[in-house]
């Protein structure tokens, strides 16, 4: 196994550790750098992060990721896999009318609220050409194609429920010229000396007194789009929600969970005192207690990882059998990263 760390390094500080040719510049302010965690510089990244925060109140890196790469032999010998990630999209279900019962969530960490309605999503935003995807709130969906394979192959430990389409036109970009109230707003701005689309216009637009007219323009746009969609009658793409029916897998050491690769959250600020939430981010491969594995093809962890913040919810980790992995990865089904998981 090869463990590779990716860091989004502040370009102003990148030369403190990396040559000019290393990494990929993302715009002019950040560089994406990948190094193996066995590289001596990996620890230096952590040291610089601490030092720069103390001395300059700025971080060395912002975002990060840990990837685990395997040989064919390692993959063939593995008896369990972790469904790491999929194509991510928003808005999440809660913003599209999906109902959650917050009274069932842990009062301390907010994990575990039960979904009380069908999953409703704006399926226009679901990734195209993918077979498995996940909202930013951890709602997993699979394509019709993958759903058929899962059923035909008799995968156990899961349910598939149809996802309902609920378009959120209110979040679409709005061309003011398209709607009457938008054109009215443009005329009003012109009279106010803030012609569209100059800098003064956007300042003027955000004034409280213009809110009602702006809301009217969005409402008018949304109504026209809904009417247009109804007339066209074009069906939304078919997706199914992946529901894992068993959540007994116990995450155990040496699994690491914490804030980032250099911060295991020693104070436990991201952990639930009642044991539901075990931290903000997964920092290693996943190990589970062998006695809690069960014999189904798809199982999720008892514990949660993440945070209840805004519309984001702590998530259970999903573990799959070799059979499930082969189906997900076969026939060019796209959209997910799978890692080896371990039974302890």
């Amino acid at each position, binding site marked *: 196994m090869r463990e590779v760390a*990716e860091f*989004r390094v*502040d370009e102003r500080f990148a030369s403190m550790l990396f040559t000019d040719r290393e990494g990929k510049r*993302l*715009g002019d*302010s*950040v560089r994406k750098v990948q190094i193996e965690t066995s590289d001596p510089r990996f620890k230096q990244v952590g040291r610089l992060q601490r030092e720069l925060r103390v001395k300059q109140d*700025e*971080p060395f890196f*912002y*975002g*990060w*990721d840990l990837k685990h790469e395997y040989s064919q032999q390692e993959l063939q010998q593995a008896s369990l896999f972790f469904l790491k*990630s*999929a194509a*991510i999209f*928003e*808005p*999440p279900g*809660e*913003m599209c009318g999906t109902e959650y019962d917050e009274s069932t969530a842990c009062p301390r960490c907010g994990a575990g609220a039960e979904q009380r309605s069908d999953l409703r999503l704006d399926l226009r935003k679901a990734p195209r050409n993918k077979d498995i995807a*996940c909202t*930013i709130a951890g709602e997993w969906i699979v394509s019709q194609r993958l759903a058929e394979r899962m059923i035909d192959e008799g995968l156990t430990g899961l349910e598939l429920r149809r996802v309902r389409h609920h378009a959120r036109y209110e*979040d679409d*970009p*709005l*061309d*003011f010229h398209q709607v009457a109230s938008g054109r009215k707003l443009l005329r009003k701005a012109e009279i106010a000396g803030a012609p*569209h*689309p100059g*800098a003064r216009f*956007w*300042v003027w*637009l*955000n*004034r*409280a*007194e213009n*809110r009602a007219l*702006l809301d009217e323009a969005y409402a008018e746009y949304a109504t026209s789009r809904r009417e247009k969609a109804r007339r066209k009658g074009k069906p939304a793409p078919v997706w199914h929600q992946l529901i894992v029916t068993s959540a007994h897998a116990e995450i155990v050491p040496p699994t690491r969970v914490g*804030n*980032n690769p250099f*911060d295991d959250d020693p104070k436990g600020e*991201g952990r639930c005192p009642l044991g539901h939430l075990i931290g*903000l*981010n*997964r920092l290693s491969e996943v190990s589970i207690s062998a006695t809690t594995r069960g014999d189904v093809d798809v199982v999720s962890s008892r514990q949660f990882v*993440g*945070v209840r*913040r*805004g*519309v*984001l919810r702590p998530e259970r980790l999903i573990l799959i059998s070799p059979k499930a992995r082969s189906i997900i990865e076969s026939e060019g089904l796209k959209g997910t990263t799978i890692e080896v998981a371990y039974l302890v």
Partner: protein
Amino acid sequence: MYKSGLKDAQKAYLGKAGVDEAHHVTPVYLGGPRNGLKTNLDGAYHQRITNEFRGLWAYGKGMPSFEELREILRRVYGKFPLPPAKGR
């Protein structure tokens, strides 16, 4: 700074210039509240801000701590300030 940033963005993203887009000041993918503070931005400038956020913290790559989130917000809006919005 906002004015010049807007002009640059409108040149870079012609197709988005002049279109209104609602922007969550704290992006929801980083844990910003659903009904949190929003600002209406030119689509081109919004694209610049979105790119900056995604560059600093990619989609679906874990969650920042509160301290990290504060650093991200400070960095993005230090570079791409929001239009002043009196009265909101």
